[in-house]
């Protein structure tokens, strides 16, 4: 990411050098015994911190307005406090005004960062909307799968427990979806093509879900859906719809078109997550997948 912002970084570095040069040429150096160490540490420290915030911001964000505002404001704070710190090493004549202007960059920088924060909030709302079906109420960046950008089984188990604790007794359905013959796609077209199939199926499923639903990558080629306020019958009908949508998809690999179809199994999310998932997992591995009604009775489904 830092490569993207090379010119910004060079400009900030040059500004610091210019500042140092300005003080060194127009000021008179103070003797060592006049240095005030507490001021040097606090003002220099602020400059160093602000500099590291600039780096953190630039290294973690793509370009754009919010990034420019945040990094620019932080850079102003850094230069302002650096100038403040230079004051401790050089005596500037009382009549000069330029050093006050330099130090005045700190509040200006704070204003810019605040404006950046305001837009960042907007951006975050948009992202939340986008991520809603993937993460629901919590954010835990470690729980995301790198290939599909979906949450993993661990996160799913926590969400099931959370749903059970939040609204006990309310219907909530759990669906597992498995890609038919996924291992054959891997053998025939290679594992990178298999990864692309997983991504495509993930996207297709996300497009067909409600905002309150949660889609996870359980493991391998198995996806999991947590559907609050949904009966098993509704879940089965949704699963059939999803399977039909995925069946309609045209996935093109190098070696030709890959046909993708899904099996599914669903049940009420009313038991311990581990037991529930193990049971569903067994059901969905059967050639003809099924729906578990009230955790025990089995309803056949294609």
């Amino acid at each position, binding site marked *: 990411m830092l490569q993207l912002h090379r010119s910004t970084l060079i400009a900030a570095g040059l500004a610091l050098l210019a500042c140092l040069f300005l003080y060194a040429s127009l000021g008179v150096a103070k003797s060592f015994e006049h240095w005030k160490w507490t001021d040097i540490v606090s003002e220099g420290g602020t400059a160093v911190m602000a500099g590291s915030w600039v780096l953190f911001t630039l290294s973690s964000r793509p370009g754009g307005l919010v990034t420019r505002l945040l990094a620019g404001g932080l850079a102003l704070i850094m230069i302002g406090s650096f100038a403040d710190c230079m004051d401790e090493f050089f005596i500037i004549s009382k009549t000069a005004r330029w050093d006050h202007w330099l130090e005045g960059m700190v509040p200006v920088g704070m204003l810019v960062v605040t404006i950046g924060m305001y837009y960042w909030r907007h951006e975050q709302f948009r992202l939340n909307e986008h991520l809603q079906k993937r993460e629901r109420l919590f954010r835990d960046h470690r729980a995301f799968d790198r290939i599909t950008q979906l949450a993993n089984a661990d996160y799913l188990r926590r969400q099931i427990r959370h749903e059970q604790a939040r609204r006990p007794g309310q219907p909530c359905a759990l669906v597992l979806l498995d890609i038919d013959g996924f291992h054959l796609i*891997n053998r025939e077209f290679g594992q990178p093509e298999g990864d692309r199939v997983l991504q495509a199926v993930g996207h297709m499923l996300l497009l067909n879900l409600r905002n309150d639903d949660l889609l996870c990558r359980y493991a391998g080629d198995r996806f999991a859906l947590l559907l609050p306020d949904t009966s098993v019958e509704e879940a089965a009908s949704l699963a059939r719809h999803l399977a039909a949508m995925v069946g309609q998809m045209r996935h093109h690999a190098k070696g030709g078109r890959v046909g993708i179809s899904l099996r599914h199994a669903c049940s009420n999310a009313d038991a311990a997550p581990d037991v529930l998932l*193990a049971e569903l997992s067994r059901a969905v591995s059967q050639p003809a997948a099924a729906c578990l009604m009230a955790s025990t009775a089995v309803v056949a489904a294609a």
Partner: protein
Amino acid sequence: MIAYRQIGDCFIPARHQPALILDYARSRELDEQGDKALRGTGLRGWAMPDADIALSPAQYLQLLANVMRELDSPDTSFMLGQQMLPGHFGAFSHALLQAQNLRQALEILCAGAARLCPLLTPRLREEGGLAVLYWTDGFGAPSQLPALVEMHMTAVTAMCRWLAGERLPWRYCLNRSAPAHVEQHEVHLGGDLRFNCHLDAMLIKPEWLDKAWPRGNAMAASVALDSAAAEAGADRLALAPSLLSALYDHLLANIRLGPTLELSAAAFGVSAATMKRHLARHGSHFQAELDQVRAHVAIHLFQARGYDNEAVAQYLGFHDATNFRRSFKRWTGLTPSLLRDGLLSVPL
């Protein structure tokens, strides 16, 4: 004299299993983070290694450990397993592809273990209405054993599923407690999982062994096996097992004769002190190896022949059942009855 390989011997062609690992790591973009994952592996870069480079088991284990650490994902061992077999490891891989049925595939796997899966040794046993494929550590890597077992069991499962054209109803017994990432086991292995088993084994009903596989070709398989024998040629080390596996087999064959370090060392043509040193290099010692074999024999007798404590004690040369019970608890941490209940409580 028994031929064997040690952890420092370079005999694993870098283009075989190590190349698969490199390939997978590249597909996960690990090569973009520099050469950190290649440290201690004897490999120079991420490109396909030269044909004449061979790695030692220590280097191969290091490569696996590095890649798993850097990718830090619970599915790494399973994904590596998915691609491992039949593989492109010479004539044995060709033979596996042509196997007529499960029995032949597993026999090829066990015979060609040095080529097909050098780190873990598979062993097939059929008795008491059950076929058991179990795995033992080849080169003493206890910290990597859970991942190696996941990888090798996935490899056999995926290969059989592909060649048989259907999912085989394996039961998986794992010598570990239930992990946090049990979903990976469910998806890549199957739903019938047993943890805390004191043996890493895949169980299946014997009728599956002889069911014909659609791709099977008797002629091609036997041609491939002939060329495997020709490949090995006169080199008696070509297919030699690891020291730990060779010792396991030796102890298993002599388990009723009261094997000792001195007698076993003699069978390997080395002094007792040398044998001790070799074992230490594999992180083990003679008593630990002997205890493991005795525990496996006891489990086998319980399971396959329905022996009770008394009978097993007598078979293994213990004075009485109480002594055996105490020893068994020391080997496995469980009393024989507890283990029997855990292993056999639900029929396959």
